[in-house]
Each structure stands twice: as structure tokens, then as C-alpha cells.
């Protein structure tokens, strides 16, 4: 299966009875997942620090016939996260899905990495998902179960020079997911990770766009992938729906690499 395109045929209404929070839903993969969840019938909470961006995504979901609201939320602030989660819980019978997709990428080697940059990456990419899980898990338990999807990265499994803070945060996030998966396994709450690599949206496009010749850089990176191409956001959405839906009810504490085989080249 190519995994690319054919969005209309994907509507199978697998998420109709649940509220799905997508943190970082205003852009990149979070945006794509929000829209797909809307098509699948979920009541989507598009939570993001970028309120106009979140509103644009929520409006697009509604215009497409779905249900969605935008909530402004800084994932590094526990009060914001608590308030967002409480508001989300009031929107439907249960919070069935939490996607932690808010992240920043830092491209600074150890010796040049400032305290501030280190802390900011850890706060957004690691503490953010922790705060979201801590706030949402009790609601999921109360509702009889749920699915947490953390957006990791190939760089949480293997490393590449120049990403110390990002790698450390994503590596830590994977273990946090496993911890939460074990702690809430008896509650029918599942916690899994998606680990995309270079995908034609979001952080990758943003950072590669800063190169002198972005297209050449992207082509070079694509050529280095085992599948000789970049990932498509729809492929990430497919996996997110799988994890969010009742198709994956016995899957927890797992990481699904969405990297065209890249991580398989090295010890994970």
C-alpha cells in the first residue's frame, strides 16, 4: 500500500464515541492527525500554544463536517494543561485519545548548547507530554479506558550528530510511555509511541527549509532512506488512527517506527 493520498476512502468512523485531544494540533503532524481524527468521527480538541493556528485547524475540521474545538495551551505550564484537559473532558462521554505532538527540535551540539536551549527542549518535548499524561490519564481511567499516543522520533531510538537535547528528550519520552503503559495497563489505558523520521511536514520541513537549497537537502535525505523517499503525513495519520482505535486494544508500551526502515540499520 502506498499510504499516500486517497484520504476520502479512509473515512471509516472508527473514533466516533470519543474525545481526542491533539496537543500541538495547530501545525505539522499534529495538524494532519487532528484533521484525520475529525474525519474518523472523534470530537477533536486541537490544543496548541498557537491559538489562531489551533482555531484554523478546528474550523477546517468543522467545515469538513466534523466536531472540533480549539483550546490555547502551553504544554510547559501545568495549570494550562489541567485547564485544557478539564475543558476537553466536558465535551463528550470520555477522553478516549491523547496525542502528544507538541515539540521543538534543537540542532546544537553539546559544547554549544546553552542552559536555556537544553531546558526549553526538555520542557516542551518531555515535561509537556508528562504533564498531559498526568492530567489526562485519570479522565481515561474514569471513562473505562483510552489511548495515549506520544509522538517520538527516530532520534529517540538512534542518534545523529548535533541533536543532543532532542535525542535525550525523545529517548526519555519513550521510557516514560513504557512506565505509563505498565502503570495503567489494568485500567484499559494504552500508551504507545509513534517514531516518525523525516516527513514532508512539520519540524523536518521547517528545519530543512533553512538550508541554502532546501529541495537538494530533502532529496539527499530521501536518497539516504532505505525506501528512498521521505515519509508522508498520511502514513503517520494511518498509524495514529490504528493506535487511537479499537484495532490496537492489546498493544501497549510499544513504539512504531514510521521511518521507511531507517532505524533498522542500527541497534535500537
Amino acid at each position, binding site marked *: 500500500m502506498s499510504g499516500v493520498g486517497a484520504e476520502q476512502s479512509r473515512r471509516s468512523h472508527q473514533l466516533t464515541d470519543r474525545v481526542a485531544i491533539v496537543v500541538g494540533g495547530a501545525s505539522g503532524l499534529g495538524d494532519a492527525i487532528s484533521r484525520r481524527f475529525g474525519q474518523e468521527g472523534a470530537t477533536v480538541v486541537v490544543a496548541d500554544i498557537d491559538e489562531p493556528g489551533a482555531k484554523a485547524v478546528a474550523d477546517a475540521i468543522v467545515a469538513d463536517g466534523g466536531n472540533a474545538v480549539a483550546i490555547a495551551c502551553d504544554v510547559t505550564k501545568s495549570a494550562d494543561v489541567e485547564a485544557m484537559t478539564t475543558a476537553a473532558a466536558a465535551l463528550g462521554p470520555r477522553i478516549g485519545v491523547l496525542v502528544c505532538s507538541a515539540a521543538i527540535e534543537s540542532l546544537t551540539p553539546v559544547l554549544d548548547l546553552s*542552559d536555556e536551549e537544553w531546558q526549553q527542549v526538555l520542557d516542551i518535548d518531555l515535561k509537556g507530554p508528562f504533564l498531559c499524561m498526568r492530567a489526562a490519564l485519570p479522565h481515561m481511567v474514569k471513562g473505562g479506558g483510552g489511548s495515549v499516543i506520544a509522538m517520538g522520533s527516530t532520534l529517540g531510538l538512534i542518534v545523529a550528530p*548535533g541533536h543532543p537535547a532532542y535525542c535525550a528528550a525523545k529517548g526519555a519520552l519513550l521510557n516514560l510511555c513504557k*512506565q505509563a503503559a505498565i*502503570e495503567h495497563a489494568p485500567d484499559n489505558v494504552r500508551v504507545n509511541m509513534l517514531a516518525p523520521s523525516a516527513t514532508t511536514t512539520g519540524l523536518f520541513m521547517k528545519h530543512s527549509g533553512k538550508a541554502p537549497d532546501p529541495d537538494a537537502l530533502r532529496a539527499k535525505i530521501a536518497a539516504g532512506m532505505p525506501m528512498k523517499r521521505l515519509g508522508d503525513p498520511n502514513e503517520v495519520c494511518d498509524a495514529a488512527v490504528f493506535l487511537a482505535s479499537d484495532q490496537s486494544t492489546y498493544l501497549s508500551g510499544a513504539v512504531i517506527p514510521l521511518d521507511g526502515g531507517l532505524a533498522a540499520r542500527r541497534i535500537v
Partner: protein
Amino acid sequence: MDVVTIAAGLDFSGLLADKVALITGAASGQGRAAALLFGAQGAKVVVADFNDEGGAETIKMLEEQGSEGLAVHADVSVRVDVDAMVDATMERYGRLDVLYNNAAVQMSGRVVDCTDDEWDLTIATNLSAIFWACRSALPHLLAGDGGSIINTASTLGLIGSEGYAAYGAAKAGLVLLTKQIAVEYGPAVRANVIAPGSIDTPRFRKVLDSTPGAQDFVEGLKRTIPVRRLGTADDVARIALFLASDLSSYVSGAVLPADGGLAVYR
């Protein structure tokens, strides 16, 4: 002190002769055991800890075995302390060859019960502190003739478990950070991880003393460890010596479990 014994024809003494090793958390337990073993192998040892009394005791033990050391007060969760401990090392010895990040704080708590303060302190002590120490020490390690960074993670940084949300996350982050450093500074500096399992140290005993049914707990724990015993601080120190010395000159970015097989069995 056990000295590492030997295949015929190889001299396994003085493995760290003329080297300077900085060990955090060296006032007790695994850090102290490594300090004494490194000292016995010829290293000058900088004993960094926030427990000044224990640090002084480690120095006394080093001197009693004929080794040389320097005690430095450092709370590794405080960035300026971390920089100061590296500065003190350079001021006294003018070089740094081995950085052994052993200090850690262990707080248990499930995700939903972990407070912001517990999270922040655990991440600072067990992850950010190691980043700070490496950033501070790397220029000196790079200036030498082959440096070694040894970072202490944990079995709980390799596998998931219950009740160690922040601790497990920090230790797993540390594994990836170490691999990053191995890749970034590969030509001159090696960086590796030790992942201890259940090690019988004073801290372990302290936790045990406050646990009801401690003996049953320990017996149950031993049944989950393939070698059927708890680890000792010396078990871990020997692995650290391997990583600190040229015995491991082609090992970098590796994770060595010091767990009697726990992580593969559980």
C-alpha cells in the same frame, strides 16, 4: 580491594596511571567503590559529592591505600556546582581524562502522582546534570590523549517498570544523550553507559530498612536476577574501570548492564 586479575602475559595493573578521573556521587556506594578501584589503578581521583563528610572519608580511604584524591563539594542538580567541580579538577591537576557521572537521585512515583517538583529535581539531577558535566568537561577531555565519559543509567532506563516515571525517563534520556556524545566527539572521546540493576549499597539498604517485609522482598528480587544475587558496588566499579581504561579503547556509545542479567530476564 580486589585487583582485577588477569589473563597470562597481560599486565592489568596501573590501568589508569597518570590519569585524572572525576567521579560524582563518590562519597558512598558505587561512586566510592569506583574511586578506590580507580585510585588503586593509578588514577588521581576527584571525589565530587554534596555529602562533604562522606567525600572526606573517601579521600581518607584513598590516602590509606596510597592513592591521591581531591574532594570537591558539588550538588550536581545545581549547574554552577557542576562547572565548579570541573574547574577545581583542572586547577589542581591540569587535566581530565575520565568523567564518571555516577550521582543520581531516585524518587519513585507513578505518572499521575509525580509532582512538578519531583519531576524537575529528578530530571535536573539525573539528566541535565550529566549534560552540564559533559559540556563542561569535554573541552578538557578533547585536549587530552583520549578521554572517557561514563554515565550511570539504570535498568529502569532500559525497560519500562511501574512507579518510576521521572526516574525511568531521565535514565533513558541519559542513554540517548550518551550515544549523541559518542557520535559527536568520537575521534577523541569515548562515551558509554553503565546500567546498574539492583545493587546492594548504603542507599539501597536505607530504602530497604523502611520497607516492611524487606527480607522477603530481597529474596523475591533475587529470583528475578539470573545470577541470583544482588550486585555489589565493586561489581559496578569493575565495569567502570574497564570503560575508563584503554581496555575498552574501541568501545563507544555502548550500554553495559551491571544487573546480573535482570533486564534480559524480566
